């Protein structure tokens, strides 16, 4: 277990300070490589917090994507498997079915989940696989250099839609939560923009439910994070956040689309207050 002192850069003896925030035990001390203003860091931290909160470090298997988060396994302390592009739900399906005592989640971007891996996504959801999906939707291919994603907004300029995305030519954005909500195997589906501490807290609530959908053997759980990509959007980090609140949520309305997970009788002690300090 970490002590606060492990995580704080300080020359001062421990006892002069009160520890108010620390890195989740489920996260490693490797510095994140993400660009300034990118929300991957927030989501990584939230995942680490959740694994800590539910006490799952010893039985978690994380399925990492291809994309910007391809090195996600470096930042966590639990076991991980790197899937090929789009196949994380298939990999997760097998890991979970082979031993249902495991906690298995996938961490996927929009190209991974909603383009190359659409079939695996839809069928894992249709089967009601007891897996939890953390879906990072920033509407662009970040790692490969800003190409158009299935979730890019109409009119959005990308390196493969330099004139702006024209739905007549390239189709309309895919609203994943709405699409999956038609499937009875889905126990929880919600979308949240990561644009404020309040929204991050909301994200925590959704993640708890999506995790409980698995742990309580109810079904497939997905949380879609409306995320930033300031570098490829060509915006400052703050402008990127504002863009989500102003424009992205018009195409991808936040909210809960499916919730078959009963409300928790009582939130884990300190869960809400202990968190939130990272944003």
């Amino acid at each position, binding site marked *: 277990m970490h002590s606060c002192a492990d995580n704080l850069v300080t020359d001062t003896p421990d006892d002069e300070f009160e520890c108010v925030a620390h890195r989740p035990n489920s996260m490693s001390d490797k510095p994140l490589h993400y660009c300034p203003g990118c929300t991957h860091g927030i989501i990584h931290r939230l995942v680490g917090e959740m694994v800590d909160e539910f006490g799952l*470090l*010893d*039985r*978690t*298997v994380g*399925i*990492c994507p291809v994309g910007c988060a*391809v*090195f996600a*396994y470096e930042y*966590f*302390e*639990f*076991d*991980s*498997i*790197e*899937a*090929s592009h789009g*196949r994380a739900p*298939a*990999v*997760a*399906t*097998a*890991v979970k*079915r*082979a*031993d249902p*005592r*495991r*906690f298995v989640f996938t961490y996927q971007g929009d190209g991974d989940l909603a383009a190359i891996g659409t*079939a*695996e996504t*839809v*069928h894992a959801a249709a089967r009601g696989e007891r897996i939890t999906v953390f879906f990072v939707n920033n509407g662009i291919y970040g790692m490969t250099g800003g190409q158009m994603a299935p979730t890019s907004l109409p009119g959005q300029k990308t390196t493969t839609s330099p004139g702006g995305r024209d739905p007549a030519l390239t189709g309309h954005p895919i609203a994943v939560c709405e699409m999956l909500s038609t499937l009875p195997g889905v126990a929880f589906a919600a979308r949240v923009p990561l644009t404020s501490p309040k929204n991050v807290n909301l994200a925590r609530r959704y993640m708890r439910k999506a995790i409980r959908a698995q742990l309580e053997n109810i079904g497939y759980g997905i949380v879609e994070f409306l995320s930033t990509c300031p570098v490829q959007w060509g915006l400052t980090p703050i402008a990127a956040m504002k863009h989500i609140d102003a424009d992205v949520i018009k195409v991808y309305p936040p909210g809960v689309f499916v919730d078959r997970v009963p409300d928790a009788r009582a939130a884990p002690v300190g869960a809400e207050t202990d968190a939130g300090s990272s944003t």
Partner: protein
Amino acid sequence: MIVTTRQPVSTSERAVRTPAPAKRLVKGNEALALGAVAAGAECFFGYPITPQNEVPEILSYWMPKLGRVFLQAESEVASINMVYGAAAAGHRAMTSSSSPGISLMMEGLSYIAGARLPCVIANVMRGGPGLGNIAPSQGDYFQAVKGGGHGDYRCIVLAPWNVQEMYELPALAFDLAERYRMPAFVLTDAVLGSMLEPARVPLEFPPLVRREQDWTACGRGNRAHKNVVHSLYLDPEVLSAKCEELQATYRRAACEVRFDERLIDDAQVVVVAFGISARLALSAVSALRRRGEKFGLLRPITLFPFPSERLSALAKRVRGMMVFELNSGQMVEDVRLAANGACPVEFFGKMGGVLPPPEELVEVFSKRFAR
């Protein structure tokens, strides 16, 4: 006579051979499926495709009955990635398909090889390219033996020639896959998959033996460190070292060569054929012997590793080698490499699902090596 360069036989092989029940008529695909169960496959993932459908059908009955995992995936792409996941978490995992479906699995197979995961893939080959047909073929030799997907990798490849071996070779495939941490193929075809033969194939199975391995991403439990299964190494020096490691593994696996020889001792011409082709060739060789023509048969059971050393030694003392395959000439390249010019290596092949009867082979073989 079956020649095994490595003794003794593996534990799983022993398990599938004992107890030996009475013979019964068994279809090749059924033997393959039950062989996987007997070999201790914990998970099977597959997608329907002719001519191997009995494999998932039979496993959909047996696997759940024995508390194991069977799942019909949404595609072969998903199947192989499920195999990847289960293998990464330390489970004996398997899929089966036929040629077009195996093509779809090539990306996942490359990842499996790159991540050094053991698993078994059965390919009941059919005619190609493209949709081809559902008749027997051996057109996927290159794909299985030379890699198939991207990057420098190999798979163990085992080629059964009768229904009994369809049952026994999955166990060997799992053992070799685990011994070398690499994927293993059972490479067979539409004839062997659909034919019935008397075979000793039990319907009672030994309990699963869990093997603890220190590298699996199965949940940390009490382990002091995390395990990560991946194949990404951005630093060229690091990836290069990993590739060298793989190649060294493949060289080590060379000791696992197995082959079967018939009428070789005084043979002047050695027919080299695998799987169903070797069956057709055996009939031809026997007929040629009755005519006084000294042909023999060498049947590789392991296509990778390939019995190059044995062929090389034989090439120095025979008049020639006659390779017969149900393709345009794929294994013949490996035979020629082994012979290395020491004797002529002739080839005869049929494609598209045509099976040349032994009578035709007799004429072809005899003519090619007429004095």
